[in-house]
C-alpha cells in the first residue's frame, strides 16, 4: 500500500468520524458560549464576502474574455475630410476594404447610428448633419483576419482623411485591467480563507483555554488526544459549516437582487453569476468547514501538548 493511499484512508477515517460524530464525546465538552457565536458569525460573514469576491472574479473574467474576443474581431476607420470630399473618400475606403482579404464585412455607419454613439455626451437633439463629424466605417474581420499594417498603408495612400483603428491601443489596457480584477477576486478569496482560519483558530484557542480543566480531567481519566480534539473539532466544523451555508445563501440572494445590466447599463451591473456560474459559490461552505476542521485540529493539538 502506498503512502498516499494510507494518507487518503487516514483522511477518510477522520472525515467519517467527523460526520458520524459521537454524542457522548460531544457532551464531555461544555457549551463554549461566545466562541460558538463568534465562529458562526465569522464563517457567515466571510462566506458572504467570498460570494461577492467570486462574483467579481467571474464577472471580470467574462468581461475580459468578451473584450478580448469580440473587440479583436472588429476595427474602425474614421474619415475626417472636408464635406465635399467625405462621400468620395468613404466610397474609396469601402472599395479598398471590399478588396482586402480577411475582411468579412465593412459598412459606413448611418447618421442615426453616429448620433446614437454621441448621444450620451451631447444629448438626443444633436444636429449630426450640420456638424463636421467624421464618418465612421465598421470593419468586421473574417476568421483568418487581415493584414492590419498593409491596410493602413493602402488607406494612407488612397484615402488621405482615413485613420485606421484596430482597437488594440485601448483594448489591451482594458483586458489587462479586467484580468487584474479577476486576479484580485481570487486574492480576496484567498485572504478571506486565511482570515477565516485565523478567526476560527482564535475562537478555538479561547474555547480550549476556557476548557483547560475539562481537558485536564479527560486526560487524567485516560482520554487520548484524538478523542479530546475530535470533540472540539466537530463542534467548530459544524458551526463554521452552518454559518457558511447561511452566509453563502445570503450572498447569492444579494447578488441575485442586484440590478441587471439591461435595467441600468454600466460596468458594475454585470457583477453576478451566469448560468452554471450559480453553482460556483456552493463549495464555499465546504471550504469553510475544511478550514475550520484543520484550524481547530491544529489549535487543539497545540493546546494538548501543554497538558500531560
Amino acid at each position, binding site marked *: 500500500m502506498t503512502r498516499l493511499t494510507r494518507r487518503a484512508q487516514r483522511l477518510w477515517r477522520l472525515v467519517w468520524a467527523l460526520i458520524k460524530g459521537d454524542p*457522548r464525546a460531544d457532551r*464531555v465538552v*461544555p457549551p463554549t458560549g461566545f466562541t460558538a457565536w463568534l465562529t458562526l458569525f465569522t464563517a457567515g460573514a466571510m462566506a458572504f464576502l467570498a460570494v461577492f469576491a467570486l462574483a467579481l472574479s467571474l464577472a471580470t473574467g467574462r468581461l475580459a474574455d468578451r473584450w478580448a474576443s469580440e473587440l479583436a474581431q472588429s476595427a474602425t476607420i474614421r474619415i475626417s475630410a472636408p464635406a465635399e470630399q467625405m462621400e468620395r473618400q468613404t466610397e474609396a475606403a469601402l472599395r479598398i476594404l471590399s478588396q482586402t482579404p480577411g475582411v468579412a464585412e465593412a459598412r459606413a455607419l448611418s447618421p442615426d447610428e453616429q448620433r446614437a454613439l454621441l448621444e450620451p455626451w451631447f444629448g438626443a437633439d444633436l444636429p449630426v448633419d450640420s456638424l463636421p463629424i467624421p464618418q465612421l466605417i465598421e470593419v468586421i474581420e473574417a476568421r483568418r483576419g487581415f493584414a492590419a499594417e498593409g491596410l493602413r498603408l493602402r488607406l494612407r495612400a488612397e484615402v488621405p482623411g482615413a485613420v485606421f483603428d484596430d482597437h488594440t491601443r485601448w483594448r489591451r489596457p482594458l483586458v489587462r485591467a479586467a484580468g487584474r480584477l479577476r486576479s484580485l477576486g481570487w486574492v480576496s478569496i484567498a485572504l478571506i480563507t486565511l482570515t477565516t482560519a485565523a478567526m476560527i483558530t482564535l475562537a478555538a484557542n479561547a474555547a480550549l483555554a476556557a476548557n483547560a480543566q475539562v481537558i485536564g480531567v479527560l486526560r487524567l*481519566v*485516560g482520554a487520548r488526544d484524538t478523542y479530546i480534539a475530535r470533540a472540539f473539532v466537530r463542534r467548530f466544523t459544524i458551526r463554521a459549516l452552518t454559518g457558511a451555508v447561511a452566509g453563502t445563501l445570503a450572498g447569492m440572494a444579494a447578488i441575485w437582487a442586484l440590478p441587471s445590466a439591461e435595467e441600468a447599463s454600466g460596468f458594475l451591473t454585470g457583477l453576478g453569476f451566469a448560468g452554471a456560474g450559480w453553482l460556483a459559490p456552493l463549495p464555499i461552505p465546504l471550504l469553510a468547514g475544511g478550514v475550520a476542521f484543520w484550524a481547530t485540529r491544529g489549535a487543539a493539538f497545540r493546546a494538548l501538548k501543554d497538558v*500531560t
Partner: protein
Amino acid sequence: MIELRGVGYSYSGDALLSDISLTLAPGSFHFLTGPSGAGKTTLLKLCYLELKSTSGQVTLFGRPAQEIGRDGIARIRRRIGVVHQDCRFLDHLPVLDNIALPLTVAGHPPEAHREELGELLAWVGLEARARALPPELSGGERQRAALARAIVMSPDVILADEPTGNLDWEMSLRLLTLLTELNRLGKSVLIATHDLNLIRQAKTQVAARVLRIRNRHLVAAGADL
C-alpha cells in the same frame, strides 16, 4: 506494576524529591505521609505520569516511562484509578456521567455497563445522587464519587491523594473501608495523607506499609505508625 528507582523531581532548579525508590506490587497497600508541602502529591503525580521525573527511572506495568508516548499514557491511566484531593469533575455532567467518564473515553458505551454502574453507585452510597451535578454534592459525596470514578475501569492500581481531607471521621472511615475492600480484591492501593489517625485505623484492617517523605527523601515511617 509501578516502580520508581532513584527518582528525583526538580522544579525551577529546586529539588522537591530526591532518590525516591518505591514498588507498588499487586495487592500491596501503602500509606504515604509527611507534612504539607513535603511532596506527597508530586510523588503521586510521578506515578501516573502527570509529572515526568527529572532523574531516576519510573516503570509502569513493565514499560520505562520515557518510552511511553501520549497515547500510551492515556492507555496506562485506564489501569490506574486516581482520587484527587480536589476531585476534579466535569461540572456540567451529572454524577453518573462523571463516574462513567473513564468508560466513555475508552470507547465503552456506559449504557452497556448500566448494571455495574448501578452497583458501583450503591457501593459508594450515591444511588439517590446519580442525576445531581457535582457542585450540588457535599464534600463526602464528592470524595465517594471520585472513588467510584477511579475504580469504574477496574484498575490495577488506586492512587488517592488526601481522600479524606474534606471528610468527617465517620465518612473517612467509610471511605477507608471501601479502599481496604478494593485491596482485598487484589488492587494495589497508595494513599497520600497527613491524617495519622486514619493510618492507625487502617492498620487494624489491612497490612499496610507506611512511608514518610522527609527532607525530599522517602523513608519508612516510625514505630508510632
